[in-house]
């Protein structure tokens, strides 16, 4: 569904991407991890068409988003939902007006239908009762929930999450991840979640990709990452390896093993170091 092909990008002489390639199949969600400042959010904005690569292509269902303009770009973006790191709620509007905004501006639905839809979405994210509050009057977690409601109200096929749990306490962060998972079960979107918190996100994604040194350094399932011997992957995973053993999908019973996730590599993590050495390591 999303194809990122060999993109290169630099800012003020600093090379951020040196040939990033990634694919997200329809109906799957990928977690994009990496060190702070490595370009995860920049990659997400390339998928959304907010930034254009200097070289390479980004395609959504075969259509190139970087070169799209006017109605073609509008049509592509109509299929996208984006959860910004800070929420990006319109701060002069209430939560109700924020969530209703895409419906009012892009559809011909009646006020009554819009109201019903908005109240339903706000209830889905657990913010009933806060409809008429302003973003400055609510907590960070509530801002993220409201922003999630706004991005989902148009039923997007593709969702992009830019660090949805950054800045939140562990309990609130976990509730946001559970909410994303519940929305995914309901709407069945494809998507990318940019995050530092791999342990929290691992149970709800199908694959993980690690961005490092301007390329996709490693890609595979959560289990692959956990078991990887690649030094960079191990350094990033660090103390989280124990957490990953403990993480369960929301709703799973105690004692059950982690739900097996699909792995195209048959259980072997694809990393830059294995590719360069031409050695297929048993992970």
């Amino acid at each position, binding site marked *: 569904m999303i194809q990122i092909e060999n993109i290169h990008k630099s800012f003020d002489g600093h090379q951020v991407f040196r040939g990033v390639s990634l694919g997200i199949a329809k109906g799957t969600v990928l977690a994009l991890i990496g060190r702070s400042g490595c370009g995860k959010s920049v990659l997400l904005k390339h998928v*959304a068409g907010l930034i254009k690569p200097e070289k390479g292509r980004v395609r959504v269902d075969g259509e190139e988003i970087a070169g799209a303009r006017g109605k073609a770009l*509008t049509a592509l*973006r109509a299929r996208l939902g984006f959860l*910004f790191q800070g929420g*990006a*709620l*319109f701060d002069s509007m209430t939560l109700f007006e924020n969530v209703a905004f895409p419906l009012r501006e892009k559809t011909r639905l009646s006020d009554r239908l819009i109201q019903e839809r908005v109240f339903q979405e706000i209830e889905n994210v657990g913010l009933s009762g806060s409809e008429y509050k302003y973003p400055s009057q609510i907590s960070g977690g509530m801002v993220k929930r409201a922003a999630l409601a706004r991005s989902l109200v148009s039923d997007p096929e593709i969702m992009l999450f830019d660090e949805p749990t950054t800045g939140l306490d562990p309990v609130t962060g976990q509730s946001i991840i559970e909410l994303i998972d519940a929305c995914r079960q309901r709407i069945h979107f494809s998507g990318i979640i940019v995050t530092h918190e791999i342990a929290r996100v691992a149970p709800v994604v199908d694959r993980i990709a690690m961005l490092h040194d301007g390329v996709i350094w490693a890609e595979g399932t959560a289990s692959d990452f956990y078991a990887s011997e690649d030094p960079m992957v191990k350094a990033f995973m660090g103390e989280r390896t124990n957490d990953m053993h403990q993480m369960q999908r929301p709703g799973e019973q105690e004692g059950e093993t982690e739900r097996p996730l699909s792995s195209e590599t048959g259980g072997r993590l694809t990393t830059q170091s294995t590719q360069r050495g031409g050695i297929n390591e048993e992970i």
Partner: protein
Amino acid sequence: MFGIIRKFGASTIETIWKMGTMGLFLMRAAVLMAIPPIKFGRVLKQIRFIGLQSVVVIFLTGAFSGMVLGFQGFYSLSRFGSDAFLGPMVGLALIKELGPVISALMVTGRAGSAIAAEIGIMRMSEQIDALELMGLSPYRYLVVPNFLAAMISLPLLTAIFDVVGIFGGYLIGGKLLGVGAGTYFGEMAGYVAMSDIMEGIYKSFSFGVIIAWVCCFKGYYAGVFSGFGSEGVSRATTQAVVLSSVLILVWDYFMTSILY
């Protein structure tokens, strides 16, 4: 030596790039103003903000500007025995020059700075990106309404300034310094022509374009040209007010020489 030349060259290129970006910004706004849909709700909201909420400050500055003109004009003209021409002097000065310029400077300080700050904060908090990703044009929502509102509000505010200023001049010249009402208003009617009034309107209309153009541009590109974060927004706001004010005065000179 070469380092200095290189820096000067880079600085010149950057300045030209900024000017070009600013020019393209104006062109894009002009094109979108001519092509529907226009967000009339936003336009009305901005007319209320730029126009209606500036009436008090325009009233006060107009009144005191007229009163000062009345004083200074009377004492200057009376040296030549021409104090009977106080009315035309106050009327022409306000209608052709002081009304449009001072009104525009007041609106720049009050509304222009707020527009630059609002759009700048929206840029920093990714609200403009959110608009784009919804498939909506930030220009139609943020820029075009401000342009239309400023172009409508400035001539009206200038008219209020002129009327209040003229009566302020009469308050001093007539009631305090003894120039008769018939002399004051009668001579004014004889010397102020429709062309003078239209000159003031053309000026105020173009000043509205300048205020909207500079303040929207500075806010829209706050993260690019002014730095990041709250400091970037404050720098963008300051630059917007300063550049608007300077451009208003420069453009006033060119308009005066063209319309003279």
